């Protein structure tokens, strides 16, 4: 098990990570969510022993790894957000190069390269220079490099940024299979809430350097269990209509986009008369409305006051 204890990183300009605590057990997938600047990347950098913390500790099997990071590095794979590969090498050459850094015996490395190429679906393209790969292929190889030494723990920092839906699905399936077949524990950060919902057993939500919520998906959603999310489709939508909605004390987390207005109301609250009267007053045509269970996005909005991708 990896435990993060009171981990802190302070700079002259401020504190990027402020006394956070979390853990990850073998075989589970943990999501780390947070808007830009929340401190996720700094947390990952400290967790992967790239930068030393100002305070706190990272424990592997209850032993600190700060003084001797090699024990953690042997069992940890890191998939950076950036494509950290040599464009002028082929996929096979890249895998061989990074595999050699883990001092793997030649025959073992040869086998692992073949297995990893299969896992990431690049066995047919393994002799092509990486600079000629598509974005999705580069992302898959970026993951493959981190899998070579069969890590027990894998940190994946936004592994699906900027790729087509097909490659994204392939990556998500690869991650799922990896977790199921190899029992690899994964820390997964993403801006895509649906990815986190699909993959993760537990979730930590970070904001302004702190962990502001944690638990299973159900536990996190239960934060909003006393509320319902209402999505209303309207026509002739106007700013005055929105302003009047915002003034209603029983509506919260109001969000609008392209003829859709979403808000949360307390369960049991009869909001319909007010909504109808506002529509009539502003001559807004109410086309439909839907009562939804709260999503992680709603919880995130509720906790941070910001949408995840803002």
């Amino acid at each position, binding site marked *: 098990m990896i435990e993060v204890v009171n981990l802190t990183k302070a700079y002259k300009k401020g504190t990027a990570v402020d006394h956070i605590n979390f853990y990850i057990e073998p075989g589970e997938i943990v999501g780390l969510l947070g808007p830009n600047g929340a401190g996720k990347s700094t947390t990952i950098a400290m967790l992967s022993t790239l*930068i*030393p913390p100002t305070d706190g500790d990272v424990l592997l099997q209850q032993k600190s790894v700060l003084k001797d990071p090699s024990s953690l*590095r042997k069992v*940890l794979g*890191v998939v*950076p957000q950036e*494509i950290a590969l040599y464009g*002028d090498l082929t996929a096979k050459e890249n895998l061989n*190069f990074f595999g050699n*850094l883990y001092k793997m015996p030649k025959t073992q490395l040869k086998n692992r390269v073949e297995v990893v190429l299969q896992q990431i679906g690049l066995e047919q393209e393994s002799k092509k220079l990486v600079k000629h790969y598509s974005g999705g292929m580069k992302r898959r190889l970026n993951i493959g490099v981190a899998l070579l030494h069969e890590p027990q723990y894998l940190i994946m920092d936004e592994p699906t940024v900027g790729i087509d839906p097909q490659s994204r699905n392939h990556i998500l399936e690869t991650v799922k299979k990896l977790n199921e077949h190899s029992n690899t524990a994964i820390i997964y950060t993403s801006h895509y809430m649906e990815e986190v919902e699909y993959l993760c057993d537990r979730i930590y939500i970070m904001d302004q350097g702190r962990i502001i919520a944690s638990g299973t998906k159900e536990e996190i959603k239960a934060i909003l269990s006393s509320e319902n999310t209402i999505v209303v489709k309207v026509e002739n939508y106007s700013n005055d209509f929105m302003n009047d909605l915002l003034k209603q004390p029983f509506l919260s987390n109001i969000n609008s986009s392209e003829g859709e207005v979403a808000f949360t109301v307390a369960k049991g609250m009869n909001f319909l008369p007010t909504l109808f009267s506002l529509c009539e007053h502003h001559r807004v045509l109410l086309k439909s409305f839907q009562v939804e269970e709260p999503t992680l996005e709603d919880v995130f909005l509720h906790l941070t006051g910001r949408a995840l991708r803002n």
Partner: protein
Amino acid sequence: MINILKTKLILLKREPLSFIVITIIICLFAYILGLGQQAKLPIAVYSNLDKNLTETMLQELKKMPDVEYQLYDEEEALKLVEEGDVELAVHLQASSFELISSPNFLNAPLFQNEISTIYREVMQNETIVTAYPVEQQKNIQSILNEVESNASFNVEYTNFSNDGDFIYDSKLHSLFGFTLFMVIYTIANGVNHLVMERRNHIWSRLTVSSIGKTQIYIANLAYSFLLGYLQVVLVLSIFHFGVGVDFYGGFFKTLIAIIPYLFCIVALTIFVASIAETPGKFNAFIVVLAVPFAMLGGAYWPIEIVTSKVILTLSYISPITYGMQILNGVTIHGATINELFQPLGMLLLMAVILMGIGINVLEKKGHS
């Protein structure tokens, strides 16, 4: 470490253009500025001596470096001087020789001395040989040749680097100058790998692997050093073995003596890498540093001819100054390690300071 070096060499093999271009530029500039301008001074010769003696005299005269003696008849030789095609003509006679020079040729007295010595020796030998009967002359000539090659007294001329004399060999100067200057770019290209790897997070990947950071640094620095060294060996070998430039017997010493300079340049580029955030900025900083260093260090022209005290003082900050001192030292001056202690020490001191600061700043930035 070997793995990193091997990978860098594969990358060099796939993208060799800048290495090849820089090597060609050094060769071109060194050739054009050093050897291209070194056409031999033509001197016309006409003679009243018999054919054999004239040939012997010409053979001896042609041993003078940087001068091309050509035999003409009298009318032709005088016409060449008149028309300014040659600066000097030599008229060889039985009892003496005569120099006919153009009015602007100021080195006639120097040539008079040199030619006089040669003329006297040849005529002396001729007098001795002809004093014997014809059947013995061949034997006497071989005895004279033997005496000449195994002289009883061996007189050597040496120059001391500290005797204040400035000895200038334009071929070596331009070769050394451009090599020391341009190899900065080659080494910088090697170190730029490190800047790019930090930028695209390959460096992070290396850092979280099982090999130590020291090994990563050593591999990167060794690659840059070897890249520069390979280029220097290549260029100097081309000029020594291919073009025939005289290294005064110090060719192999040159290959060893250049090592501290290359080490210092690796340290300098690491220092620049520590303050440059991007590969583009790194290249810009290198250009901004390398050109003034070359000017101040005497890569373009000998620093000995500069009279400005400011420039002479500034030249102490340029590694090229010390590089030129060392290379000239081991070739032209035949200097020993003791005599080169000061430039060697300065290069190593600069290397240690720049490397220390550079790596520390890089590490601090890596932690922020």
